[in-house]
């Protein structure tokens, strides 16, 4: 068995601790156990497990998470351990909790930076626009400027309809623009 920390040396130190009624085990090599201060009394297995950032081994009393199955594709955390791949997009929500540490350990950050599909931008933009209009509306009402308020109310209503249309017609399904484009010679 290899050390769970450095994944190079043979693990010679096997630690078990009950955390939240679950038995957690960590296997370390001598060097890593010393580096992590295992002999010291102040040593906490929990912090070590967290720093490992990977789904931890639970021997007895399998955690509830182990039994969680993705409602969308039927994938379980045990499957993930086996194949190292997820079942579907929904799995990222289903296993959000155990994935968090893993993502943190493998990436620069846990929040996406970069390209966003155009339709996502627009829905974000519309939401932002609605918020801005709502602010103006509140101000207009407070100032008893009812003509402007009526105008703003109409604009908000229109933006809401746009937003609803965006979220209810996904482009992956046979949408309006697809058959037209396939007719191209």
């Amino acid at each position, binding site marked *: 068995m290899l050390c769970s920390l450095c994944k190079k040396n043979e693990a010679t130190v096997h630690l078990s601790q009950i955390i939240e009624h679950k038995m957690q085990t960590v296997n370390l090599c001598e060097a890593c156990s010393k580096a992590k201060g295992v002999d010291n009394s102040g040593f906490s297995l929990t912090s070590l497990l967290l720093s490992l950032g990977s789904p931890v081994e639970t021997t007895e009393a399998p955690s509830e998470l182990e039994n969680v199955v993705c409602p*969308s*594709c039927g*994938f379980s955390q045990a*499957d993930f351990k086996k*194949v*190292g*791949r*997820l*079942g*579907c*997009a929904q799995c*990222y929500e289903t296993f959000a909790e155990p*994935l968090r540490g*893993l*993502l943190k350990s*493998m*990436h*620069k*950050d*846990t*929040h*996406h*930076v*970069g*390209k*966003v*599909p*155009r*339709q*996502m931008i627009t829905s*974000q933009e519309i939401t932002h626009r609605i918020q801005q209009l709502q602010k103006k509306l509140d101000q207009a009402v407070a100032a008893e400027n009812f003509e402007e308020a009526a105008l703003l109310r109409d604009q908000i209503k229109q933006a809401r309809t746009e937003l609803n249309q965006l979220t209810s017609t*996904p*482009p*992956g*399904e046979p949408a309006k*623009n*697809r058959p037209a*484009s*396939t007719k*191209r010679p």
Partner: protein
Amino acid sequence: MTLTEFLSSPALSSRRSGPHGHIVLSSRVRLARNLKRHPFPGWAKKPERVKAFDILQEAVQTLPQLKDGFIESMENLGPVDKQILVERHLISREHAAKGTGSGLALNSDESVCVMINEEDHLRMQALRAGLQIQEAWTTIDTLDTALEKRLDYAFSPELGYLTACPTNVGTGIRVSAMLHLPGLVLSEQVNQIIQAVNKLGLAVRGFYGEGTEALGNVFQVSNQMTLGESELDIVERLTKVVAQLIEHEENARLSLVEKQPKMLLNHIGRSYGILSNAHSISSKETMNLLSLMRLGLDMKLFPGVDQSLINELFIITQPAHLQRQISEKLTAEERDLLRADLLRDRLQQICRPQCRFPDPDGTGLDKPSAS
């Protein structure tokens, strides 16, 4: 049209060149994308996978970039065709093993290749000769933007593009450059360099990507992290690192010429000798020796010989490319004989390398005792 008819000939594709082509063989940017409402290919059952494939294929087919392209299901490709695609670095070895429900789309000059239902629903990549990472990114970004209008991508504002493997989540981008680093290998600096590059969060791999050997002194440098850093930042970072690696390789070559000219001439001369006289030679040995001949060419030891000849020999001596020339199935031993015949034939016209390095500044670089 068959794949063989579609693919450009090795002679043509070996003439493609780009900036810093003496060290950077190619640049590549790959994006991973998935559909929101379909399980990932590895977990999907066959009917689900086929259903997703139909949606994806239809969307890919309509792309202007793939007009006059080659679009085929993997089940319709024979093992030799699949291997040829791997040898041309157009598909992964994993994808070559796929059948029903997976496919590929390739544009006419092989600069864009989309793998359908590999590990992710879409693995789209742009390839360029030499150091052209930014250009490759622009190409694939445009293609992706066109596709997102037709497909409902799995995307989360928090985690970005969702991928089968959490290592690709976020931008789903893999930026890479294929580098020829014989100078760093011969001067035994390459491991040190690899470690330094690794510390920057970049991966260094062998000739065929993950888990492969650095055959022919060819190394692939790529980003590892995909979440929390924008595509442009990754592209810029990798471009900078590659520029530094080019400098290190150039310096290593210069210092070898200066300090160990005999060692260098010996390696290059022997590689020429074996390649042009062998009667049986393995693919691995061929690649390693061709790498040294390429170095000799870069150092002007083979005047009048074009770089594209070595590039072409690199391609046509690989197993599937050799097998394609012969109708009956060859054993590895038979391939080694055929490979040697081919090399002897193609190198017949090439004169033996010069016995000293050309002198850039008029001072004798070689030791006086050398003839």
